């Protein structure tokens, strides 16, 4: 479930050929998709006579469904030298591997999302570090609640309980400290020195 924003118009324009087939993915639109901006872009390209066809659909990361959906656009795709895809990176890669000989242009950048937000993105993040620290921190994740992802305690940058990077963000370790005090588990702070293991990934 990724959030995207459209790249600068000039960046997209500089990559397009003379004939373009356009694919918009609304799959994760409930979280957000730059719908209006994308529609405006399509309108402009159409007005410029560049568009051989377009489809607005969802979940283009699913190659089987995408194939079925693109069947009726075979001629329009054939006639295009570029396929413009507004989606997250998975969608662009899926389209690119379906049309290996065509230039596929990514219309969007994702918002940086370092970790998993869950099936209902809300206020927690799991960085999927592979070595859960929550037992030592009262259930507040030090990797995502601390700008520096520190695992051994607060840095000196905390001011008024806020993070040095973003004064609008509560210091993660301040929260952890409070939580541990609240649940009577301040002893967790005496755990052995933590050193992160960056080799937990299942495939690299």
């Amino acid at each position: 479930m990724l959030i995207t924003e459209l790249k600068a118009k000039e960046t997209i324009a500089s990559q397009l050929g003379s004939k373009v087939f356009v694919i918009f993915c609304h799959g994760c639109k409930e979280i957000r998709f730059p719908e209006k901006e994308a529609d405006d872009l399509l309108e402009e390209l159409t007005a410029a006579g560049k568009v051989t066809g377009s489809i607005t659909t969802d979940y283009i990361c699913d190659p089987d469904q995408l194939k079925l959906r693109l069947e009726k656009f075979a001629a329009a795709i054939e006639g295009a030298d570029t396929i413009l895809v507004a989606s997250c990176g998975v969608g662009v890669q899926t389209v690119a591997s379906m049309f290996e000989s065509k230039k596929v242009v990514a219309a969007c950048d994702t918002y940086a999302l370092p970790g998993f937000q869950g099936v209902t993105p809300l206020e927690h993040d799991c960085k999927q570090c592979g070595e859960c620290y929550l037992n030592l921190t009262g259930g507040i994740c030090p990797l995502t609640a601390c700008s520096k992802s520190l695992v051994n305690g607060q840095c000196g940058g905390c001011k008024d309980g806020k993070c040095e990077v973003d004064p609008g963000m509560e210091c993660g370790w301040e929260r952890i400290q409070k939580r541990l005090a609240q649940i009577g588990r301040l002893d967790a702070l005496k755990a052995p020195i933590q050193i992160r293991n960056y080799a937990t990934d299942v495939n690299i």
Partner: protein
Amino acid sequence: MENYTKYQLKAADELASVLSGVDDLFVVACNKCYKEYDTMVEPDLDAFLELAKAQGKNVTGAMRLDFLCNKTQTAKRLVDAIPEGTKNVFVVSCGLGVQTMAYVDELPTFAACDSINYPGHHGMALTKKRCDACAQCYLTTTGGICPIVDCSKSLVNGQCGGAKDGKCEVDPNKDCAWEKIQQRLEKQGRIGELTAQPVQVRDWSKVNFKVINDYVKAIRATRQEGWYGGIHPVEGKEPTEHLGLVRFPEPKTVVLPMSMHLGAPATPIVEVGDKVKVGQKIGEAAGFISAPIHSSVSGTVIAIEDRPHATRGTCLSVVIESDGLGTVHEDVKPNKPLEELSPDEIIEIVKNAGIVGMGGAGFPTYVKLKPNKPIEAVLVNACECEPMLTADHRMLLEFADDIIFGLQAEMKTVAAPKGIIVIEENKPDAIALLREKTAGLEGIEVLEVATQYPQGGEKMLIKRAMGRSVPSGGLPADVGACVSNVSTVKAIADAIRTGMPLVERVTTVTGKYIPNPGNFIVKLGTSAAELVAHCGGISAEDVTIKAGGPMMGFPQTTLDTPIMKGSNGIIAIDTDVTEPQECIKCGRCVDVCPMELKPLHFVKLAGASDWQGCKDMNIMDCMECRCCEYICSSKLPLVTMIKMGKNGVRGMK
């Protein structure tokens, strides 16, 4: 299908050390996500319980939940779930479940699992392709192969010296991403583009959890107003929202089905050959939950027979050939002024006019006007949350006075001190007009609400407007509400002021494949085919035609069906060519279900004819709004399965 499930139990020795010194545990396990839905019961909880038991721990209880990270649903399930005497909560889930639990419960919360570390994000289909959400997509210059995810070093300026036989130095089984990029670009003749591009330097400043969290929260806060779930499909209202209502030409024949409402079909009271006039009753209500039918034209009854029907295959219908004169029946005459009418008189007028819920459900309106509980507010449902349809919108703009009159009549009938006209924010002109017209009218207000489907669902509307939840199986009156659609209210006004029963309505004809879309005032019984032909026909083959909107509309195999009391639109749209795939437990149906159900399970349960299971998961609360089917990443026919499940439950002894 790849398995991207998010957690695994911590190693036994680590768990043993976490468990040492804590006791009286309550265990919550997440049913996992992003893996093929092959079992309702994941094994990890049992494994943990066994381990805890072996350590001699007292377990006060355990429960399995779907999607622990869904805070709303998790919090709801946890109310009173944790037994007295529990001192610690152990959570079998990824870090999100643990964090969510730590927030909904004040007991010390422990993680029994480690997350599984996959670089990058998979999509909503579980393929091998992943996106790191790096915020600066490189795929255009790299031929659609991601250098961030696919290269072990995430290099963005070309291959390192470590590739051997086209394989990565880190994992000899893995293709070197830059080798693949090279080959792809060679194939496309684009190597020059790669070498000519400026040196790439990554920008790490965008990585910030807080920004993304705040952003998502803000979006959800503004989009999900007042009630849980819902969706935001493409509105598609632009083609018709500015087109004024047009009176559709008098049809030559009308086909009036005896069932245009919920409940028992009406009984025809005319015979073939009878002459009828406009507003003359031709079908008698057949019971308490039923409604009479009136002729919409003057002419001759030429047949009483089964005819195609938009929602139920075929239906006994009275077919009338119009004489084109539109002679109004003698019984149609204005009633006393509203001030002089008693509630019972109004109910009688509404009942005799054959007025039913015109939003689609077709529930006889007079029944709603006789609530057995005090009513605090009459809500006029002017949300028109259904995409593409604009009939209600045009009604608001062109018949505002009638709508206000109808609302006042309803308020008087049910003795409601308040009347609230609820309009979605995507109709600012209607909101402004109604606000202007109701200014100074006591008890009446116009409420602007977020554009969010299904805002117009009765229960959502009441939740949003009054902050009250209609209990499972209950009625709006149970919480002091009476809800009517805009067209219904207008019909009540007509019935009182002119005495004309319900013989016409407003309908939108639109869609990508309708050349000249529009909003029409149509005589009931007019053929959909005639309407569509008037709008230029259907401009392509293999399109889907629906009676109603894209969400709640009924797919039509023929246009040879009549416009009925609940017909708010005819649309011609793209046909869905997808094929259902296995459920991947993405949780999106749970996230959007406004009734807070877990639709994914109904597919499995109904498929296995487990009606008791369906019932236990409150399948009967489903209002078939189709949010789950819309959002389903596996394109499962959820509503079809749910309907099957409901039938199964109804058939249970």
